[in-house]
């Protein structure tokens, strides 16, 4: 054992510095090697090319009557598209920013005020809020209500009451024409 420790520590050897350099260089090489082997093993869990290829969809919104909502699937999540009534638009636009937990004007959340497009995923812990169907509970602010932990969203999808920290997220989308929107 004494012999090994002598070799390891290199004390008493005239080449102590050189030996330490070799040891450090060897460990460094081994570390780089291990890291470069570990990366593919971890990165394979990220979305694959075919998953990324499905990242955008087109939706025809011309058939949605005023006051009606549809839910479409985008990246495995529900997207709420609501053709809002005049009352809803007015009430969404008239809210004071100071009343909001996550202050955002209605204009910032829509491209065309008639159509509200947002992810139907509660910003608390990921449940799908109620309010899409006519018979659903719409919460205290006439928008959406998450049954899991009681978050209330208004007609602009903004959080008004409950544990959720943020407004319902707006996905990237654009109007491909008056009748078609492209999400993603």
């Amino acid at each position, binding site marked *: *054992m*004494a*012999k*090994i420790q*002598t*070799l*390891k520590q290199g004390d008493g050897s005239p080449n102590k510095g050189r030996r330490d350099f070799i040891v450090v260089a060897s460990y460094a090489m081994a570390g780089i090697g291990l890291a470069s082997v570990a*990366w*593919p*093993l971890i*990165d*394979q*869990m*990220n979305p*694959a*090319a*075919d*998953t990324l290829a499905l990242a955008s969809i087109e939706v025809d919104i011309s058939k949605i009557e005023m006051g009606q909502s549809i839910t479409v699937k985008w990246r495995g999540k529900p997207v709420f598209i609501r053709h809002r009534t005049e009352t809803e638009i007015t009430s969404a636009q008239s809210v004071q920013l100071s009343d909001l937990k996550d202050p955002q004007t209605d204009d910032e959340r829509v491209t065309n005020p008639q159509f509200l497009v947002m992810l139907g995923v509660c910003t608390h812990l990921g449940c799908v809020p109620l309010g899409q169907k006519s018979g659903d509970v719409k919460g205290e602010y006439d928008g959406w209500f998450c049954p899991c932990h009681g978050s209330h969203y208004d007609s602009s999808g903004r959080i008004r009451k409950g544990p959720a920290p943020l407004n319902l997220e707006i996905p990237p989308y654009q109007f491909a024409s008056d009748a078609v929107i492209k999400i993603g």
Partner: protein
Amino acid sequence: MSADKFSNPVVRWIDHRLPIFTFMDHELNEYPTPKNLNYFWNFGSLAGISLVIMIVTGIVLAMSYTPHVDYAFQSVERIMRDVNHGWLLRYIHMNGASFFFIVVFIHIFRGLYYGSYKAPRELLWILGVLILLLMMATAFMGYVLPWGQMSFWGATVITNLFSAIPLVGDSIVTLLWGGFSVDNPTLNRFFALHYLMPFLIVGVVILHLVALHRFGSNNPIGIDPSGPQDTVPFHPYYTIKDFFGLSIFLTLFAAAIFFFPNFMGHPDNYIPANPMQTPAHIVPEWYFLPFYAILRAVPDKLGGVVAMFGAIAVLFILPWLDRSPIRSGNFRPIFRIFFWVFVVDCIALGYLGGMPAEGIYVVLSRVATAWYFLHFLAILPLLSVIETPRPLPQSLSKSVLGGNAMAGVASAVKEKVR
């Protein structure tokens, strides 16, 4: 070793309660190892590392694989094309199987030549043969998973081997299939078992290591170390040597993965499984070819299956077939010749297994098969009686350093360093 061998107080605290550091120090650091081991002794650690590589890549591949007849082939192609680094992981796993067998075969022939199966290492050897059997089962089931033509027909042929068993054969095959042909239930259970068996192998490997460390490694001379002057601590001497061997192994492995990844595979397995049509030439993976040749050499269904399994079974009783007290082939002039004939015989069986079962190949397969069993059942027992071994050296040191004077110098040097 006293209690103060670890300077780190946390390590000391843990070690007092859970002596894992003492264990590692004892088995991996100070573990006394014969000082004359040659490079053939690298293949044990290489086999262990191969097993780890296979388990790690296998677990990540399973994250993207679908064990269903309608999706399995596509999911493998998706791994190759779409999953990040999927091609690399699959090629490592695919070639890893071949390299694992290369390493293990060399490891086994090392044991055969140097008599590593002899007393007191019989159980060590038997556990090793058990690992080989488990590896073969695992490799076979893994080859079925991509659900290509070779997967499907390999599964059909190998499972049908069991139909050779009298009376209950057909029921057993139905049980293995979970139906009346190789189909979705078969694929599902093969996936489940392919995931399970490597961990069984790990368990047997641990027993293999416990048995190994009981008496330590055999060595090229085949005599026991007579004292500390005949051994060196495992670390740093053999850790460094194992790492050097590993770097060469990994270089060759990487060359296969990056430059000829499909060399050891069969192109027909890139055709999706078709239960309606058998490929013209169906062959197993190369590492099964010698056993496949033995199976085909016997012109009887049950006989062929018995011979094939017998080729492995005979290894289990090898310690009692070769009764010669001399371990190393270096000191057995006649054994040495027959050993190399046996190596050639095994390679010939591998070649013949890949050839069509017709004409001269059938005759040669029968000769080679007969020789395989003759070697174990007649030649080895006979040699133990009639062979006169060459004189053994008195100690490992003498064989390494040649003579008393040098051995004296060596121990003097050792004394001085202490």
